[in-house]
C-alpha cells in the first residue's frame, strides 16, 4: 500500500470500494475543491455588471440542458432534435403556474426549488412519452420522431391563448432568506443557484454512470441486441434515457424562466435544439466534461462573432447586416470542422492534455 495518497504511482487498491472513488488521489480532490471555491468565490471579489452575469447564467443553464442531451445522445446514442422543446416544457410548466395563480404567487416566489424540481419531473414525463417511438424506431427515424415533437410543441405554444400565444409570460421575483432578490442581485443570486445545481447534477451523472442505470445506457448504444440478451429491456432503457434527458431539460427550462423572469416561445425553437446538439458535439458526446466545454465554447463563439460584426459594421454600409449572416455561418462551420477533425470534441483535447501532464512533469 502506498502511503502517498497525493501522487499515485500505480494501482494500490486493496478493496473494490476504493476503486469506485470519483477522485483517485487527494491531489485530484484538492484541485477540484479549490476550483469549486474559486467558482463560488470570484463574483464576490470581482463585480461584473448584470449584462455579463446574464451571459454566464445563460452558459450555466445551457450546461444543465446539454448534460441531459449528452445522456440521451452521447451515452445512449439516441439523437434528439427536440431538446429545446423539453427545455420549453420546463419553462412552460412554470409559466402555466404563473398564468393560473398570478406571476407573484407564493409558490413561484418562495417555493422555487420545488417548482424547479416539478418542472424537471414534467420534462421527464414528456421525455418518456416522446421516447415511446424508440421502442420501434432507430437512428434517423427516431431523430425525426423527436423533431416532430419539437414542431408540435412550437405549434401548441403559438396556438393556445393560455400560453399567451408565445408572447412573454412574466414570472415574479423570487425570495431568499434575506428577503426578495432585487434587481441588482438577481443574476448573481441565480449564478450561485445554477452553479450549485450544475455541481449536484454533475455528481449525479458521475454516480449513475458507475451503476447499472448508467451502464444500461451505454449498452443500448453499443449493441442493443446484446443488451437484450444480457437481460435489459432495450426499449424501456431507451424510454428511460429520454425521461432522464427530459428531467435535465425541464430543470434547465425552469431556471431559464426564473433568470429571464419571463417565458417566451422564441427561446425554445428548433434553432435552439440544433444549438444544444452542436454544443454536445463540440464538447464531446458521451463524456461528462464535454457537457461543460460545449456550451462555453459555443456561447463565447457567439459573443465573439457579435463583436466582430459590430467592428465590421463601422466600415460597411449600414444596409449590410453582417451579424445575421455571420452567426449561422460560423456556427455551421464550427460543427462541420469538429465533425471532420475532432469528432470526440473538446473533451478529447482535455483527455490528451491530462495524459501529457502525466508524462511530462514526471508524475511517476
Amino acid at each position, binding site marked *: 500500500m502506498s502511503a502517498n495518497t497525493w501522487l499515485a504511482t500505480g494501482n494500490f487498491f486493496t478493496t473494490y470500494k476504493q*476503486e469506485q472513488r470519483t477522485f483517485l488521489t487527494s491531489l485530484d480532490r484538492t484541485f477540484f475543491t479549490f476550483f469549486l471555491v474559486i467558482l463560488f468565490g470570484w463574483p464576490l471579489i470581482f463585480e461584473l455588471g448584470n449584462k455579463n452575469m446574464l451571459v454566464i447564467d445563460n452558459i450555466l443553464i445551457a450546461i444543465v440542458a446539454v448534460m441531459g442531451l449528452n445522456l440521451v445522445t452521447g451515452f445512449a446514442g439516441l439523437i434528439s432534435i427536440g431538446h429545446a422543446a423539453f427545455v420549453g416544457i420546463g419553462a412552460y410548466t412554470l409559466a402555466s403556474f404563473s398564468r393560473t395563480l398570478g406571476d407573484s404567487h407564493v409558490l413561484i416566489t418562495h417555493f422555487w426549488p420545488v417548482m424547479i424540481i416539478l418542472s424537471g419531473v414534467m420534462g421527464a414525463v414528456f421525455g418518456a412519452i416522446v421516447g415511446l417511438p424508440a421502442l420501434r424506431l432507430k437512428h434517423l427515424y427516431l431523430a425525426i420522431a423527436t423533431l416532430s415533437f419539437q414542431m408540435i410543441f412550437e405549434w401548441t405554444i403559438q396556438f393556445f391563448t393560455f400560453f399567451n400565444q408565445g408572447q412573454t409570460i412574466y414570472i415574479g421575483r423570487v425570495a431568499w432568506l434575506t428577503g426578495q432578490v432585487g434587481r441588482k442581485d438577481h443574476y448573481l443570486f441565480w449564478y450561485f443557484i445554477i452553479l450549485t445545481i450544475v455541481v449536484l447534477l454533475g455528481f449525479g451523472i458521475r454516480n449513475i454512470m*458507475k451503476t447499472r442505470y*448508467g451502464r444500461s445506457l*451505454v449498452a443500448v448504444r453499443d*449493441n442493443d441486441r446484446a443488451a437484450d*440478451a*444480457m437481460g*435489459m429491456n432495450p426499449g424501456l432503457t431507451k424510454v428511460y434515457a429520454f425521461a432522464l434527458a427530459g428531467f435535465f431539460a425541464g430543470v434547465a427550462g425552469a431556471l431559464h424562466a426564473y433568470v429571464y423572469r419571463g417565458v417566451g416561445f422564441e427561446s425554445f425553437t428548433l434553432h435552439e435544439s440544433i444549438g444544444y446538439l452542436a454544443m454536445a458535439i463540440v464538447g464531446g458526446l458521451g463524456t461528462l466534461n464535454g457537457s461543460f466545454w460545449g456550451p462555453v465554447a459555443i456561447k463565447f463563439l457567439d459573443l465573439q462573432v457579435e463583436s466582430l460584426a459590430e467592428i465590421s459594421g463601422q466600415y460597411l454600409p449600414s444596409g449590410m447586416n453582417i451579424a445575421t449572416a455571420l452567426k449561422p455561418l460560423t456556427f455551421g462551420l464550427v460543427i462541420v470542422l469538429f465533425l471532420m477533425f475532432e469528432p470526440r470534441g473538446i473533451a478529447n483535447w482535455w483527455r490528451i492534455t491530462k495524459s501529457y501532464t502525466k508524462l511530462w512533469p514526471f508524475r511517476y
Partner: protein
Amino acid sequence: MAHLNVSDVTLSFGGLKALSNVDMKIEPGLITSIIGPNGAGKTSMLNCISGFYHPTQGNIFYKEKELTHASPHEVSNMGISRAFQNLELFSGLSVLDNLLLARHQNLKYSFFHAVWFYGKASRVESENRGYVEDVIDFMELEAYRKSLVGNLSYGLQKKVEVARALTLAPDILLLDEPMAGMNQEEKEDIVRFVMDIQKERHITVVLVEHDLGVVMDISDRIYVLDFGEVIGSGTPEEVAADPKVIEAYIGED
C-alpha cells in the same frame, strides 16, 4: 422431466422452413451438442430458445415456464444465457465493463440509490465486482481486464463473449460456435473451459459446433440437424453409427 423441453418446433420464413417439427430435450448437468451441415438450422434453434425468433408452431418449456414467445431479456432472466457466434460485444467498453453489464438484473438497488451512490449502491456494486472478478479468474482474463474489447484479438473476444454469458449466472448456457475461426491451441483452451463450466460451475451447456472431433469428445448428448429436421440423436457413439447421419455428412456411395 427434462430441463429444457423443445417440442414440435417449426420456424418458417415465408415459404422457407428453417426448422420443422424439431423435438429436443436438454437434460440438466449435461453437455448437449447440436451439429449439422451449414444452413441446417442450428443457430435458428438457439435463436428460438433465446427469444430472438419465435417459433411459428410448437412450444418451448424451461422447467414449468413457457418461453415460446418470451423476449430475449425475459429468457435471460429465467436463467438461460447465450454467447453469440458473430461477436456481439460492447466493443467500446473494457472487458470489465462488458462483464459488469451482464450483471444488470442481479443488482438490486433503486435509481435514487444510484444517484446518491454512497451506501447501498456502492456496497452492491463492490459485491458485484467481486462476482465479476471471480468469472475473470475462471476464464483467465486477468491480464485484459481493463483493455478495450475492440482492441483484443479474435480468440480473446470469443473468450470474453463466453465469459459475459457466464457472468449472468445462468442455469443453461447456450454456446453458438465458440470455437469457430480459432487455431488448435485456442480451441483446446475453450474446450477445457466448456468442460470446467459443466463440472465446476454445474451449468448445463448447449453447444453448437462444427468441429466434430471436439463434439464427439466432450458431448453427453448430440442432436443432428439437417435441413431443419432432427435426423439423429443420442450419445456420441449412437450418433456416429447412425446411417442417416453418415449420409448427411459424407454422402451416399
